[in-house]
């Protein structure tokens, strides 16, 4: 008796009028439709609204490129843009490198390694609001544990969140702690490395650094690129609650990022057209960085092949 006879499930005779392939596309429908309505359409709308002035009370009015021209004189925007780009340039490489190094270090069997791997992932899964708040406490100048620890060692405490340099550094560190996501990706990529290639290299007398640079790294390039792309994209979002809760965008807007700017313009000042223009810029920055890295990787790959 076939497993699919009516006793198990009522036989849905879709097959009568839809081929298997059509059914598969039907299964894809929610995902595709959702993507269209929630991501692709918004993208188009954003690009269009960037050319308007829109406060949600009355219909949008075209103002051509006035929003973009306004960027030239908007100091707050320039600050936010600078901060976001700074963050991408500094924090993303650190996070990717950190994920890679940790994956290399923890990719082995043994007692404690499993627990260590799981522990690395923990900060990444903590709800953002709670995470930002506990760091507010940890970095509190008067009684945060970091300063208390420093003072116990006889060193002076540092007002982490009120000096521009350390405030930015704190934001970066908080994000680095959450590299668990990328760590899992790096682990996975390491696990598929063909072991015989690595063996060959050892036999040939290559030391660890050479093995890393010439064999492991190129083989892991797809994963590394993917992780870098993803981190660039999520870097915009990841600093939002940190800036709002932990540093209050201070001191003096040094931790004020593009995500805050978009949020404040749109939801605080009802300038949805202007915020859309900034959002369009976020798209462009993301695409530019991703494309740039892709091209750089291809060139590097081709150069490597020549060795």
């Amino acid at each position, binding site marked *: 008796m076939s497993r699919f006879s009516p006793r198990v499930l009522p036989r849905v005779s879709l097959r009568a009028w839809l081929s298997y392939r059509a059914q598969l596309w039907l299964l894809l429908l929610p995902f595709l439709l959702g993507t269209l309505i929630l991501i692709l359409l918004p993208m188009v709308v954003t690009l269009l609204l960037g050319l308007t002035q829109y406060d*949600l*009370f009355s219909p949008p009015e075209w103002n051509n490129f006035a929003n973009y021209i306004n960027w030239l004189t908007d100091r707050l925007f320039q600050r936010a843009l600078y901060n976001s780009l700074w963050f991408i340039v500094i924090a993303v490489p650190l996070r990717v490198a950190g994920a890679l190094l940790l994956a290399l270090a923890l990719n082995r069997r043994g007692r404690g390694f499993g627990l260590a791997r799981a522990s690395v992932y923990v900060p990444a899964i903590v709800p953002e609001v709670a995470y930002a708040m506990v760091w507010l406490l940890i970095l509190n100048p*008067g009684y945060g544990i970091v300063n208390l620890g420093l003072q116990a060692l006889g060193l002076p405490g540092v007002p982490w969140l009120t000096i521009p340099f350390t405030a930015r550094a704190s934001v970066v560190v908080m994000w680095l702690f959450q590299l668990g996501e990328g760590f899992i990706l790096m682990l996975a990529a390491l696990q598929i490395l063909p072991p015989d290639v690595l063996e060959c290299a050892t036999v040939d007398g290559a030391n660890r650094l050479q093995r890393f640079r010439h064999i492991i790294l190129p083989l892991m390039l797809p994963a590394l690129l993917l992780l870098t792309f993803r981190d660039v994209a999520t870097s915009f979002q990841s600093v939002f609650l940190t800036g709002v809760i932990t540093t209050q965008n201070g001191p*003096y807007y040094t931790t004020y990022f593009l995500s805050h700017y978009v949020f404040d313009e749109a*939801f605080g000042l*009802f300038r949805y057209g202007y915020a859309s223009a900034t959002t369009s810029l976020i798209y462009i920055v993301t695409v530019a960085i991703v494309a740039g890295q892709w091209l750089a990787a291809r060139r590097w790959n081709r150069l490597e092949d020549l060795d």
Partner: protein
Amino acid sequence: MKYTSRALRVLIGLALGATIMACAAPTPAPTSAPAPTNAPAPTTAAQDAALSGQVSFYINEGADEVEGFKDLVETFQQQHPGVTIHLVNIPNDDEFDQKVAALYAAKTPPDIININYRRFGQFAIKGVLQPVDEYLKHSKVMKAADFYPQALEAFRFQDKQYCIPQNISSLEVYYNKTLFEKAGVPLPKAGWTWDDFLSAAKALTQDTNGDGKVDQYGLGIAPVAIRLAPFIWAHGGDLVDNTDKPTKLTIDSPAAMEAFQWFVDLQVKHHVVPSKEDEATEADQSRFEHGTMGMYLNSRVETPELRETIQDSFEWDVAPMPSDKTTATILHSDGYCISKDSTNKDLAWAFTEFANGPAGQSELTKTGRTVPSMQSVATSNDFLVNPEPPANNKMYLDMIPNIRRVPVATTWLEVEGALNNEIQRAFYGDATVQEAVQAAIANTGEYFKQNLNDLNSQ
């Protein structure tokens, strides 16, 4: 396998069932009925007996202050069975503005909003608020003359009365009487000067446990425009060139800059207010509530919370702002505004008449939250006499002639944002007063221009 497929079956059944439920029964908040009908001409006051229906009432209060409003709502509902007032509280200012704006945008406007005079301009300019001049003229419960003019006038915009003020609070000095007496400092009194103020603050700034670090501060002030303004005014300066049609900040006048410097010196020179680090460690209000701060500048709005948290741990009271060349304080006022597209404006007005008329104002002021905007209530014992602190309630009334306000502008909040940033920099010694003033004027120019544009395009 069998085990798994049963679990999976349950899961899938749940998912499908839940999805169907979610789609079939969206859960909107019960705001006023969706279809806007033609509103009747706003000339007749609603008849008490004929009141029915439902309105939404959005307020922007802290947790301890909400109770008073809840009581008002309940009393009104009891008096008018058939009426439901849906009270919504959104504690944070920016969030309040944003959520109210979202409601307007979705064409489901809140019927009544209780909003600060510094924030209503952005809504008035969008044309979503109902001017209430006519309602006020025909009301049997309240007249324009009943209110203190300073409060009423703050809610006028482009020659129309948009909201009815609920209170005429002002900036005052909360002080810890117990600490003053322990340190042998004379208590603040009416007409005390900047010098008295500063010496009190100095005397109360102490290192109480001898560890070399100050742990009791004499004063707590937030370095923001609405705290600095009264000091500028008291010294003879001005914040803007024209309160009704401001075109620029005038904080570069000699008088304003002297006042600014004096204000900044409180932190930079005399260290009577917490440093940037100490400010980040613990908030001023928390310090005052724990008895480690001698004086704390804020408006009446904090009174319910202070009553709640301080209880009997120490004695406290309020004092007027210290005087310099003149005496000045800054208006803090919230008002009841009705939405133009509200579907039950008569009911909304009727509730406003109750909650903000003599009856409601008396009730609300007993909670300590308000200095009533109606003269009859403010001069009554409901406000002046209260078993709980502060005792010196009369001070508020005495200060009313000295109240000044900031402009009502469509971009005023952005001006404040830019100005606050500079005040902060100067206050914590990250910029000189000269630099801060120049930067503030430079950065706010576009906002004033925008406001003028908005006003002219109406």
